[in-house]
């Protein structure tokens, strides 16, 4: 059939589109990292490592890196502790609402991020749900500072990455063999012991992959740190955006973007290696 030989021609529009609007701009980003910023703040075309030298001699870059890594680690850990039981529940339940429950678990991923951030402002704000409840119970006298700081950003980020981690865990649980758990139970192991000695070890690869995903998503999140941080939380993502737009310092933005990307790639490689090792 000549037509099946002509089938690959259908790939041409998509390939051209991605080459022009994706690959070429990405190369442009790379190119910009080797330009310099002149004394007036204007960009100077060059092929130098000056921007890299300046950026990495700045202790602020180091601080941003630590902030990003720490924030992502804590958010991922919280999200994992919450996502794991939900995924296990969804994997095991024989409720006829299972399909609906799965959709509800990943619903936040389909609702605009700005809407969810706004919801957190109403829950964690000075006159929000948490503070009014605690005050009416007489537990606190002055409102707790829960937003426009690291606490708010961590909570918001954990919630926003949870749906993705639930999906990753569910995909990983597919390989969990129920008969092994049943064997342990019938041999007299308590439910907790069965979980600790059978279920948990078997799901470790899924945990590693989900944690890797959550970490990468938190590192590259911008909206949550920006809005729930209220300008007081500085991470790599917020700095890249500030440098690119407010400061129009493209070379520095490009250097930080490439640096962040390298960090993310390293993290992904590590989490995949860990998952593969745990699989054996």
């Amino acid at each position, binding site marked *: 059939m000549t*037509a*099946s030989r002509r*089938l*690959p021609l*259908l*790939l041409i529009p*998509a390939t051209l589109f*991605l080459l022009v*609007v*994706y690959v070429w*701009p990405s190369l*442009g*980003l790379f190119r910009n990292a080797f330009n310099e910023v002149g004394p007036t703040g204007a960009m100077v075309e060059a092929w130098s490592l000056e921007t890299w030298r300046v950026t990495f001699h700045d202790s602020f870059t180091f601080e941003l890196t630590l902030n990003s890594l720490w924030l992502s680690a804590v958010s991922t850990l919280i999200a994992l502790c919450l996502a794991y*039981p*939900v995924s*296990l*529940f969804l994997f*095991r*339940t*024989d*409720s006829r609402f299972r*399909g609906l429950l799965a*959709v*509800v*678990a*990943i*619903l*936040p991923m*389909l*609702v*605009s*991020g*700005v*809407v*969810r951030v*706004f*919801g957190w*402002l*109403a*829950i964690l*704000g000075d006159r*929000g*749900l948490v503070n*009014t409840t605690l005050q009416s119970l007489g537990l606190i006298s002055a409102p707790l500072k829960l937003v426009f700081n690291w606490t708010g950003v961590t909570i918001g980020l954990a*919630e926003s990455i949870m749906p993705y981690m639930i*999906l990753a865990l569910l*995909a990983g649980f597919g390989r969990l063999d129920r008969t092994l758990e049943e064997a342990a*139970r019938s041999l007299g192991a308590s439910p907790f012991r069965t979980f600790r000695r059978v279920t948990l070890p078997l799901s470790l690869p899924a945990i590693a992959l989900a944690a890797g995903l959550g970490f*990468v998503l938190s590192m*590259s999140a911008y909206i949550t740190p*920006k*809005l729930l941080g209220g300008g007081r939380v500085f991470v790599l*993502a917020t700095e890249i*955006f500030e440098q*690119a*737009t407010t400061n129009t310092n*493209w070379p520095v*933005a490009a250097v930080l*973007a490439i640096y*962040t990307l390298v960090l993310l790639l390293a993290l992904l490689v590590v989490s995949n290696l860990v998952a593969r090792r745990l699989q054996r």
Partner: protein
Amino acid sequence: MTGAGRVLSSFAALVYAMILSPIVVVVMLSFSADNFIVFPPSGYSLRWFQQLVGNGPLLAALWLSVQVAAVVTLLSLAVGVPAALALAKGRFAGKAALTSFFLAPLLLPTLITGLALLLFFSPLKLTATLPGLVLGHMTVTVPFVIRMMTTALANLPDDIEAAAATLGATPWRVVRRVTLPLATPGLIACACLSFLLSFDETVISLFIAGPRASTLPVEMVRYVEGRTDPLIAALSVVLIVATLAVVLVVERLVGVARAVGK
């Protein structure tokens, strides 16, 4: 041992409450009578919905977002579905490599894509224009359409197509009269989700939008940064209802978990 057990089920219920709390709170807040974000509200009214109808900039942004999302959806299907067809049905050298090339943009954070597009569009004067926003959103939707439709088309039963071909239909006729009609539920679901992806796209838009052309999520971010009143809650309710409608359509057609998962 069947089912999930009581301890696990109650813990899951708690987490569900946490997952849903921002959305529930936003809905209640939209009916607030207060001037600020106070929860629970001291009284209820429809004043913020009335304010919303009178808010020119937000309505203009909403209209632009709808236009952008509609154009993005049409163009992404036009570019993505043929590619998906080739990847699902074709046998040629380099198919695996091409597939990863098409899906790569989904792995890169939109923060990086947005920055790259800002640097690319600025000299071309495409920032803060409708074509610029459309092209920017398509870097997300085209790979998404290719991924979703390749799976959908590959999962179609081969025998009906084979029967049509044996009965003398030309390959293009098979695609037009058999493959695409069979794939219609998937196509509609894919169009819905592309629309949603473009409509909700925030980070890329923040990089390339401007005062002349600003989408709804960008205007919402600017509003939340500047002021704290329940207006955005009222707008959010409208968006949540619209999103739920789309999600229900997709769920009926193909299943949301499968569509967004992989």
